[in-house]
């Protein structure tokens, strides 16, 4: 028995989804970009950042964790939503320490790129100046906890893809931290630089040593095109 097609509209564009797809997956395939931060196409969604929130049938829902359903009517690219998304990006900027001009991730960083795409100026909120420390115990990887935005990508990748469970959270609320499966630093864990978990961090928290400047500043991914352009390019293909 063939399943009924799932059709919904987002900002007045009609999209067809496959059974089991989330809204964001269906939109990605169709070339409609919904801003997102914690979502990664190769990992289970987790709903940490809420940047992908859209108005779904009049209610705010995070589209990475909301299954596509027939007849949905979705607002995505509206001023109100983009203002709220920008505010979340700003919150993440002040929660950690993010001196972009001298950060190794600048130009590859999804947080920074979203700040640009959503038109963030200098954050107006209060800097929290955390002092969470750097873990350089691993020969090939270092962790700069002050950059961590607690998106859980590394946790999911390590558990589901690498089968290692190197990462987890500790604490709750504003004192929540990324935690590792060893008392003496990352060097004591099973982590390897080829792990999926080492490749999914959207910011400069998990950094591969001696690799940071292979691509010079100015020629990096988001120096060349704004975040989301790759997805939007698909739309042009879909249309033509």
């Amino acid at each position: 028995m063939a399943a009924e097609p799932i059709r919904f509209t987002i900002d007045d564009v009609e999209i067809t989804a496959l059974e089991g797809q989330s809204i964001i997956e269906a939109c990605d395939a169709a070339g409609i970009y919904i801003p997102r931060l914690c979502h990664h196409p190769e990992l289970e969604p987790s709903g940490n950042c809420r940047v992908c929130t859209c108005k779904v049938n009049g209610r705010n829902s995070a589209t990475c964790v909301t299954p596509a359903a027939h007849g949905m009517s979705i607002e995505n690219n509206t001023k109100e939503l983009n203002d709220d998304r920008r505010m979340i990006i700003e919150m993440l900027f002040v929660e950690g320490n993010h001196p972009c001009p001298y950060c190794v991730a600048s130009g590859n960083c999804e947080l920074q790129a979203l700040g640009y795409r959503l038109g963030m100026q200098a954050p107006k909120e209060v800097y929290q100046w955390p002092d969470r420390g750097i873990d350089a115990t691993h020969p090939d990887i270092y962790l700069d906890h002050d950059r961590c935005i607690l998106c859980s990508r590394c946790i999911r990748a390590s558990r589901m893809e690498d089968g290692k469970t190197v990462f987890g959270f500790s604490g709750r609320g504003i004192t929540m931290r990324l935690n590792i499966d060893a008392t003496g630093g990352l060097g004591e864990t099973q982590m390897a630089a080829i792990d999926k978990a080492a490749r999914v961090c959207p910011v400069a928290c998990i950094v591969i040593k001696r690799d940071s400047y292979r691509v010079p500043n100015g020629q990096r991914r988001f120096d060349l095109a704004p975040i989301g352009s790759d997805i939007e390019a698909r739309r042009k293909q879909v249309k033509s």
Partner: protein
Amino acid sequence: MREAKSSDSRNSDQYHWKRVTRPHRHLTTATEVKRVIDLFGGDRSRLLDIAEAVQHRFGSISDEAVKALADGLGMHAVEVEDMVSFYAFLDREPRGRFRVRLSKTPISLMKGAGDVARAFESALAISIGSTTPDGKFTLEWTSDIGMADQEPAALINRMVLTELTPADVPDIIASLRHRSNKGDEPPFPLHPVDGSMLPKAVVKPSLVKAGPLLSGPLGRDDGLRAALSMEPGEVVAVITASKLRGRGGAGFPTGMKWRLTAKAVGSDHYVVCNADEGEPGTFKDRVLLSEFPDLVIDGMTVAGYALGAKHGLIYLRGEYAYLWDMLQDVLANRRSAGLLGTNILGRKGFDFDIRIQLGAGAYICGEESSLLESLEGKRGTPRDRPPFPTERGYLHQPTAIDNVETFACAARILAQGAAWFSGLGTAESTGTKLMSVAGDCSRPGVYEVPFGITVNELLDMVGAPDAAFVQIGGPSGQSVAPKDFGRRIAYEDLSTGGSTMIFGPTRDILDIALQFAAFFVDESCGWCAPCRVGTTLLKQGMEKIVAGRATLDDLKATEALGHTVARMSRCGLGQMAPNPILSTMRNFPELYEARLSPEPFSPRVSLEDALRAAVLIQGRASVPEEA
């Protein structure tokens, strides 16, 4: 059969704290932890119980214990820590043998909790947040412990102390010191029996006014007997006809919830009683559990029959641990009377039993999906929905989660009929509501009132002639100003789980809003960015306002931030956390205006503070500019 069920056996159901408490001095941490794990059948979904037992035995969960837990349960240490570090009542570092936790709420502070805290500080010669050098006492604040009508209140290990005054403190300390000086050190948690010799270790009955729900003859199995005379589907139909709506705050129609759960496909169905009662200012579930436990359990058993569930769970907040023994006795009595267990009341194939899960100090675990995570032995992070618990709840099976009061209503509806119930209250809000009333009033306590009562009528009833504002529904609810005292308590108007905090004319409304903002900072689970960071920024914004240093721009920014947090947060906690600020801004704009700083800009941090680190490094202060 599922693995996880093995531990739902009698053995650990009736598991008694004292069995773990008796220290086996010759055993190592690892061996002791293994013993605890075995008590729970090595079931990792029981990690909360296991961790509580380890904490109970050692006073904290050390690195060694984390490792032993991970090894024994086939988990990674980081996963154990992920869970353990989440709960306020579980510690990774050793703390004092006697854990003094003072309830910090606007009401406790109004009633003198500040003075009591200072008395403890001076009697113990430590400041709040620290431990005495001999390791005997740790003194700290905690969120509302469900005693709003008898503040200042405190928890000492598992005991509750109420109506404290500074004069009580020396006797309390002396008596605890005396105990700990006796050769056999008491176990970490003190039990109610142990506490009977402590001054103020009593919880007064709090029911002031009973209505139709809580008066008249209340047989312990009236609901169940009536239910058994019907088909399960008919029981659900009766609940639906009564138009009962959930009493935990959200007001979802209970009949519909039960119908969805019953028809959902699963290998098991579960009935969960939400006794987390974490909303500051509410204590009516405590009254039901302590004064009408049979009524609540009768309601759960009715649900078990209606939904075809074999297992019931009561999620009891850690602050109510003092009710543990009593509730276990009630369950045991019901088992011997054939009201729980197998073939209940002789009905072949109707098997239902109940386990109590003790929480560990996390307000968010009252949110139904966090509660499920916690029941499964994980950190209390809410789940994204869909799927809803009715479809995939506890251990992924269909689960009906209802508030304590909802179950009490269900039992009475079966016994008295749907028409009796729907004849009470209003069209949209049938029945009565238990209101927990405290603050500036002469008769605090629990009042059973018909839905539709106005705030004014309630204030008259409780003796609060000069209320300046009333916080209805706790910090997550609304700040109601006198101009709105004609509004009605009902789902169609002021919808509430029952928390009613009354504040008189001398109270500082903005400071109270700030205290509520701080509550949400402490209780945010941290999973999602807007609530994790936003609650802190809102509190900081409110601090600046209360200090009289905020400009009009600051005020607008705080308001805008509040709306973003409300719109973008993942669950009800974050969505409602800005309420105290936004609703006081709406209702008392003149108070905010009066606090505004006249300057067009005022920095949050003074120049000296901003330069402090540099001054330390340089070893000299900056030279002030000539005026």
